[in-house]
């Protein structure tokens, strides 16, 4: 095995829910669900330089698709996942094509507007979404005749899905698409004159991000058994953006760290009572200032700097 630490990680991961209390397993399930959504946001932010605040829209679409398909239509849960992914992808294509002509702040604001409009629609279209009442009694997921009705079983399932998502994202980034994305992020003009379809690539990644958001939403619906418009507010969109920002946008482990951060830190701070919101806000500020490249990105930089110092080759860098 090339990476012994990976085995250690898998063993720790497998044993963790047996030593933790139910409440913490619960948080770890959410971390897995948020990791999947955060991977998409990280792709856009870290590799394309695009800030999206619209991930809550696709998270909601996945969740509603699963809820409506299984509760209202009494169809199998797997169909809910598929419909959620397709709906997220199609809507992302239709919205992304015009919106991704924008760049920088304008694009970020446009995605924020999309999230606000979508939230309003989820509220207004209560014949479909149940509005503030929501849709309840979403059935537990079954897998090979085995029902995932405890946090423990869902923990394994959600993290396996998250691992598959990580693998897919890893392959995407490692291949020629990843190279094209890095080229596009670092110099747009250079990418264009190398015949890279910059707009097409941005839209493609936006769609990938949305599909991941959809999967994440479907998992959320089946885990909690209940979805309502309250779960898909702007707060959620900001939370999804925080994941790669805190952990490290261009790094897959960074997204996991970010997802763990946003699930566990507010929980730990809740012991502080009324102040916990303020302290969480301060914690965010501290992380962003102390680790501007995200937690994992900054650790990597330290390591690289330490390596560079031990194997310094002076006189090489010049222009």
């Amino acid at each position: 095995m090339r990476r012994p630490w990976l085995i250690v990680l898998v063993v720790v991961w497998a044993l963790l829910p047996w030593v933790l209390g139910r409440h913490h397993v619960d948080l770890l399930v959410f971390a897995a669900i948020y990791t999947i959504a955060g991977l998409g946001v990280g792709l856009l932010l870290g590799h394309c330089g695009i800030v999206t605040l619209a991930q809550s829209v696709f998270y909601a679409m996945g969740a509603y698709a699963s809820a409506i398909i299984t509760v209202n239509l009494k169809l199998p849960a797997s169909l809910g996942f598929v419909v959620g992914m397709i709906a997220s992808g199609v809507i992302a294509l239709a919205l992304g094509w015009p919106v991704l002509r924008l760049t920088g702040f304008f694009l970020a604001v446009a995605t924020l507007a999309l999230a606000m409009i979508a939230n309003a629609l989820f509220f207004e279209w209560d014949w479909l979404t149940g509005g503030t009442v929501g849709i309840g009694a979403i059935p537990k997921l079954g897998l090979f005749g085995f029902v995932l009705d405890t946090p423990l079983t869902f923990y394994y399932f959600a993290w396996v899905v998250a691992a598959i998502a990580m693998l897919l994202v890893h392959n995407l980034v490692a291949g020629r698409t990843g190279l094209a994305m890095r080229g596009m992020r670092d110099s747009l003009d250079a990418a264009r004159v190398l015949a890279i379809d910059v707009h097409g690539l941005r839209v493609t990644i936006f769609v990938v991000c949305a599909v991941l958001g959809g999967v994440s939403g479907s998992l959320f619906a089946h885990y909690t058994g209940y979805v309502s418009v309250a779960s898909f507010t702007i707060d959620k969109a900001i939370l999804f953006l925080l994941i790669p920002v805190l952990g490290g946008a261009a790094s897959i482990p960074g997204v996991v760290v970010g997802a763990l951060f946003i699930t566990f830190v507010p929980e730990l701070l809740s012991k502080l009572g009324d102040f916990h919101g303020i302290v969480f806000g301060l914690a965010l500020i501290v992380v962003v200032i102390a680790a501007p490249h995200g937690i994992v990105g900054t650790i990597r930089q330290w390591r690289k700097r330490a390596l560079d110092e031990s194997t310094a080759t002076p006189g090489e860098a010049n222009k």
Partner: protein
Amino acid sequence: MLEIGGLDAGYGRLTVLHDVAFRIGDGEIVALVGANGAGKTTLVRALCGLIAPTAGRIIKDAFDVTRVPTHERMRTGIAVVLENRRLWGELTVRENLRLAEVNARQGGKVNFTLADVTRLFPIIAERQSSAVELLSGGEQQMVAIARALLMQPDLLIMDEPSTGLAPKIVKEILGVIRGLRDRGISLLLVEQNVGIASEIADRGYVMALGRIVHEIVPGGWQSFLSDERMVKAYLGD
């Protein structure tokens, strides 16, 4: 190969190029010279589709590419070495070249392999795993030219390839550029340094204030360079 007529282009409301017209024949090396701010780089950007012209035509091999987006236009056989090279500094030499390879034009008459460009610039083999930002300016220029050649162009546009480089390196690069003609590549060399341009170009155009103000015919470089008044008026030195 390339024909431009009546081209107006600029940035927003500011029109930089006015009624620009010129042509490049098959296998020709044509220089575009002019002082700083004459509009040379704006012209290069318009030719590549990085800015949209407000009037005029750009015809590549009898194919109107005026409104064709950059990534498709490059597949008609145009490649460009932009001003300041625009390499990806954090990526390695090999990765920079790889991006050109995967996006290259298919089915054109030019066929440059990695081995070909390595023969032209041996530095590419020596430094292939180095991050480009660690290379010297001259080495970076060579990687930029190699990257453009791997796009398999029959027209290569180079914006100020000599800027900031030592005379010895410039000479080496010019030697390579001269040889590209034999591989079926036409060349548009955009240069502020008219001495360099006159060394390798068959013909030339002089640009000032966004217009083509003078054409240098084959064999006409010497008489242009000796006309002190004209050189001073158009090139500012």
